[in-house]
């Protein structure tokens, strides 16, 4: 059984991301190791089977710009607070405690509102809205919210789960 690092190297070779000094060693292994060959063939087939896959919930602008807007608004609010000066001394103890919380509530509330908007808008617009994640090294999950479909794709090990075909399993 190939170890996880070796599997990742095979994936990296397929993606053209394997370090140049590691290529000869992997090529030598691929020439001799049938399991490594099977994995490479499997990954190539999987890549071939996926047509036009493009995932992602996209913000209308870059995440950095989005966050910088929130940061600027927080700073502006803090400046306003400083300019107003200290609160009158007669303010009650509970009022000052609440004011202390308000300092945090404003930025956190703003962020929560933005996240809520992204979540709700993300569910209702643009089809297909998908998320993908790797649950383990041999499977990934693709969820299409618009189509209400979850795909769990088993990329490794390769096998024919259909029927006992007369044709030999190519990757066994």
């Amino acid at each position, binding site marked *: 059984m190939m170890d996880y690092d070796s599997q990742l190297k095979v994936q990296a070779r397929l993606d053209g991301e394997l370090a140049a000094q590691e290529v000869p060693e992997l090529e030598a292994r691929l020439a001799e190791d049938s399991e490594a060959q099977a994995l490479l063939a*499997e990954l190539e*087939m*999987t890549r*071939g*089977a*996926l*047509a*036009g*896959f*493009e995932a992602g919930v996209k913000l209308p602008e870059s995440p950095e710009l989005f966050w910088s807007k929130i940061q600027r608004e927080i700073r502006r*609010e803090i400046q*306003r*607070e400083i300019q107003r000066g200290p609160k009158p001394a007669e303010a009650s103890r509970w009022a000052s405690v609440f*004011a202390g919380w*308000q*300092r945090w*509530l*404003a930025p*956190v*509330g*703003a*962020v*929560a*509102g*933005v*996240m*809520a*908007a992204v*979540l*709700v808008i993300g*569910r209702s617009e643009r089809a*297909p809205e998908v998320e993908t994640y790797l*649950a383990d090294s*041999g*499977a990934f*999950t*693709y969820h*299409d919210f618009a*189509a*209400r*479909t*979850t*795909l*769990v*794709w*088993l*990329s490794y090990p*390769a*096998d*024919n*789960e*259909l*029927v*006992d*075909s007369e*044709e*030999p*399993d*190519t*990757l066994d």
Partner: protein
Amino acid sequence: MSAKVTAACGLGWFCAALAGLVMNPLPGVAAESNLKLEALLIWGTNDAQSSDPKHKPAAPEVRKKLQELPFKWTSYFVINRKVLEVPAKGSVKVAVSEKCDIEVKNLGNATVEVSLFGKHEHVLNRKQALPKGETMVLGGNAPNATSWFVVLKQTEATATAESQPGK
């Protein structure tokens, strides 16, 4: 801090709470009950015809579901169909082919835990909500650059003799 800012952050929290309810409805709303599921074993290929005359083209709605996935196959043939009735808090295991079994546990609130077995070896375990209208598809590569799929969804149909009793 101004009243406007206080109102704005209050609105933010309200929106967040509302979004939370939309995304994750309160537990216990859906009653615990038996789940009636349909499991289809499907072969995805670019061949217009299957070499096995017993393989029928998938129904249009199933074909549409599969075509919405990011795959290149043009034809989908039904190899086998099973109907399962999974009792509340129980589980049912069925063979969808000689090499492939699935086990479905009913966790309540239309949530299932699906286990896939290939050649009787446990290959995958997946837990997810599967309410009516939701489809779960398990898939993988098959020989000659084709694919197999197990399509699982709730059905209104009454469970048949194909179902096995819960464990």
